[in-house]
């Protein structure tokens, strides 16, 4: 895209129809895809912006961003590409890596020939559209969202060109993960990564998606959609790290479409964004499946993390388990709203959901809305939610053993995180993620956080 064309494109923000029309006219995508885009744009325009009195937006406070203040990004400079590449090293032992900066592909590592021969596909969607059109059409735009962000889902589909497809055919098993990076660089740049992950019958593999900002001080917007499709017996593990700068507004609208006897894992680490909304939906359509979802969120300052989940059991004898942990500092807020839905025919379902919130300051706010809708009777379903602070008795024991208060608090906080961190199941990644979290904490004077042990002596 020429600089001139981009300048014209940037005359208006991504919520504006003029911006969309220019985007469409400059797009080199096939006509069919353009038609889809136009339909989604119409849908986007017809839907109202969510309000926090909508049930799916309950407790959400910071819906105060203006879509028109974000634009489709300009071409990336060589300097930014080099910087992004040098920082895309969270996982070195990998099968392949794709790096996007501002929706644009800047780096693509070839996958081993052996996997190519077996039919494995790992490439940007635009490239796959040319080389594997039938594969893209099988999965692209097949999923909707049920958790309140229809408007943003439509916006995503109208603009999305970036993103990738990962397809692993039947019986192919791959140990080392596929890794992708989605960097936000340009000022006010709007990102629309589209992620399609599909596993054929009895395949086994994992993928790591990392979302980050190249600059700490630039505003940004990201609206990502990730769809996982697991065919019979597939074992898919998707790991996502969201670490945008705190001037970014981000959405991540994910679905997992699960067939029989599959094992699907999803894990998220959420650190960045001023306001982040993460929707994750699991549809279990085949018997005997086992789905596990984990999330760890560390919030500070005035960040808001809005998490909405749905575990739908449409088939019998499946297991789903969810553990979302949030640690909150300063005036930050988290919302966890999760629902387990068991259909009439899904007898023998075992479904669990746990949300644990650790308040590290008086002013942090945790909201929990765990829900159950059960229509089958032969089930075991439960949920639990707790919100509390570091245990004063535990802290007291640490001090008694000569450990300083500061160190004791850090140990306790990291102990809280560890249960989720170790689920990443990759030592190098785990260690790097601990480093990211530590970085966030080191900016704080942890000593300022609760509990106030001195007060407890008077209790």
């Amino acid at each position, binding site marked *: 895209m020429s600089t001139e064309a981009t300048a014209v494109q940037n005359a208006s923000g991504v919520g504006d129809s003029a911006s969309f029309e220019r985007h469409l006219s400059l797009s080199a995508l096939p006509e069919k895809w353009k038609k889809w885009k136009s339909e989604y744009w119409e849908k986007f325009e017809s839907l109202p912006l969510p309000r926090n009195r909508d049930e799916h937006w309950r407790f959400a406070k910071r819906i105060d961003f203006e879509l028109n203040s974000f634009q489709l990004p300009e071409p990336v400079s060589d300097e930014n590409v080099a910087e992004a590449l040098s920082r895309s090293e969270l996982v070195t032992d990998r099968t392949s890596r794709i790096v996007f900066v501002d929706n644009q592909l800047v780096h693509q590592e070839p996958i081993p020939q052996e996997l190519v021969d077996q039919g494995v596909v790992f490439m940007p969607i635009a490239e796959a559209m040319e080389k594997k059109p039938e594969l893209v059409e099988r999965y692209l735009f097949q999923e909707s969202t049920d958790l309140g962000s229809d408007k943003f889902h439509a916006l995503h589909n109208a603009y999305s060109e970036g993103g990738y497809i990962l397809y692993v055919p039947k019986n192919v098993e791959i140990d080392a993960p596929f890794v992708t990076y989605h960097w936000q660089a340009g000022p006010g740049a709007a990102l629309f990564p589209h992620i399609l992950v599909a596993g054929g019958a009895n395949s086994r593999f994992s993928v790591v998606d990392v979302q980050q900002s190249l600059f700490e001080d630039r505003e940004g917007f990201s609206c990502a959609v990730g769809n996982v499709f697991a065919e019979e017996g597939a074992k898919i593990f998707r790991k996502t790290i969201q670490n945008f700068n705190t001037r970014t507004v981000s959405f991540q609208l994910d679905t997992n479409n699960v067939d029989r006897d599959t094992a699907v894992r999803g894990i998220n680490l959420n650190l960045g964004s001023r306001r982040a909304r993460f929707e994750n939906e699991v549809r279990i359509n085949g018997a005997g499946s086992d789905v596990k979802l984990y999330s760890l969120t560390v919030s500070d300052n005035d960040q808001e993390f809005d998490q909405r989940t749905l575990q739908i059991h449409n088939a019998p004898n499946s297991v789903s388990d969810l553990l979302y942990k949030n640690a909150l500092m300063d005036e930050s807020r988290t919302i966890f709203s999760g629902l387990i839905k068991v259909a009439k025919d899904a007898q023998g379902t075992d479904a669990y959901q746990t949300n644990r919130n650790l*308040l590290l300051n008086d002013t942090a706010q945790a909201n929990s809305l765990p829900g159950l809708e059960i229509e089958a009777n032969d089930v075991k379903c439960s949920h639990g939610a707790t919100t509390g602070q570091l245990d004063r008795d535990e802290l007291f024991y640490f001090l008694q053993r000569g450990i300083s208060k500061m160190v004791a608090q850090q140990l306790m906080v990291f102990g809280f995180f560890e249960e989720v961190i170790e689920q990443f199941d990759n030592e190098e990644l785990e260690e790097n993620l601990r480093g990211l979290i530590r970085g966030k904490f080191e900016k704080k004077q942890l000593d300022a956080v609760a509990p106030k042990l001195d007060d407890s002596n008077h209790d």
Partner: protein
Amino acid sequence: MSQTEAIDIDRDKGNFRYDVKYQYDAGTGLTEDTIDYISEAKGEEQWINEFRKRALKVFNRMPMPTHWATKDLENIVFENIRYYLSQGQMPSRSWEDVPDEVKQTFERLGIPEQERKFLAGVEAQFDSEAAYSHMKDALEKDGVIFVGSSEGLKKYPHIFKKFFGKVIPTNDNKFSALNSAVFSGGSFIYVPPGVKVSQPLQAYFRINAESFGQFERTLIIADEGSEVTYMEGCTAPKFETSTLHSAVVELVALKNAKIQYITVQNWSNNVFNLVTKRAWAEEGAEVKWIDCNIGSRLTMKYPGVVLKGRKARGEVISIALANDGQHQDTGAKMVHQADETTSNIISKSISVGQGRSTYRGLVQMPDHLKGCKNNTECDALLINTNSRTDTYPAINVQGNGNSVQHEASVSKVSAEQIFYMMQRGLSEGEAMSLAVNGFVNDLVRQFPMEYSVELKRLIDMEMEGSVG
């Protein structure tokens, strides 16, 4: 409390009605004329009439809570409801003076027997008005007031007005606005400082007429250091058309007071039971709602406690049983507004046949508070493959040293348990009934003896024929 004989309950006991010639009938539909009619029939003061009319405007303006509530609410046809029916009676102090039809109704339900057995006082409401009200002399001497709310408004305006509509404002929700517009009947209780009413006070609510709306309004004030237990029971016969019951109950527990409010509701299954119940608990006060919902077509009721004073305590214990064609949408709200307040919610529900039970809750702890605690436990039991259960809690926590825990589980009756009981000679229905009673047993034990017996029998009856 002394142990008394079990009350004999027949499933169809409540399912009868008398043709009563009503002296006052506001007719169907709701306009300002209806309100003038009610005010005139009751000989009300101007300020009450104005209060009602303001409430009517709020009612007409407020939307139905359709974004989260069940669609069945839309089936209420407000124009077809009769908002006021009475025989022009003032509540009788003596049972002999109660009109015959009303007396027969309550005799059949066993109200006076219950009073003779153990109650400190009883009030019986028939359609819109209290038919009978009686309290033991000793309590009267202590200054305890227990009358119908109309009488309370007339005789004790200085106490009544101070709290009326304060705990639950008119515009709290559409149905509290409706109640504020057309309320009639209900109880007014005032317990003076330090007085401990050792035996429960009881009210019994009865809907006799078809297409009728009952809108009782209850206000209970427990002054500093006092204690009172109040129990209410409800029945209605089965009619072809649906009936609306929309009460507002306000409780005020002043410093160190204790209020226990017990409801056993067994409306027939075409009653829409849409009730707003809330309490204030000041410093060191305790409010406990014990709520049992059996019957009705749709119940929407979330008793709440606003914990206004330091170390106040709130508790909701509820049991819901939803059978075919019924939806029990119940729950609890705990709004913490002072330090070191604690609250406890235990909710058990049983869904039988195609019944649906829902728990909906709210726990709130804002950032200026410290040392508050809440514990919530919800357990649901599903009996048949078609029954359904939902849980929708909302928890909002900030502050220092506050902690909240919520747990909910859904299960079915263990097949092994039923097998072992059947091996010992019980029928499958009996075994199921026993299992269900076991499920709610730890809660039922907290009910006064008479009510726990009644409850167990009601459960037995609901479980009859439910297996298979």
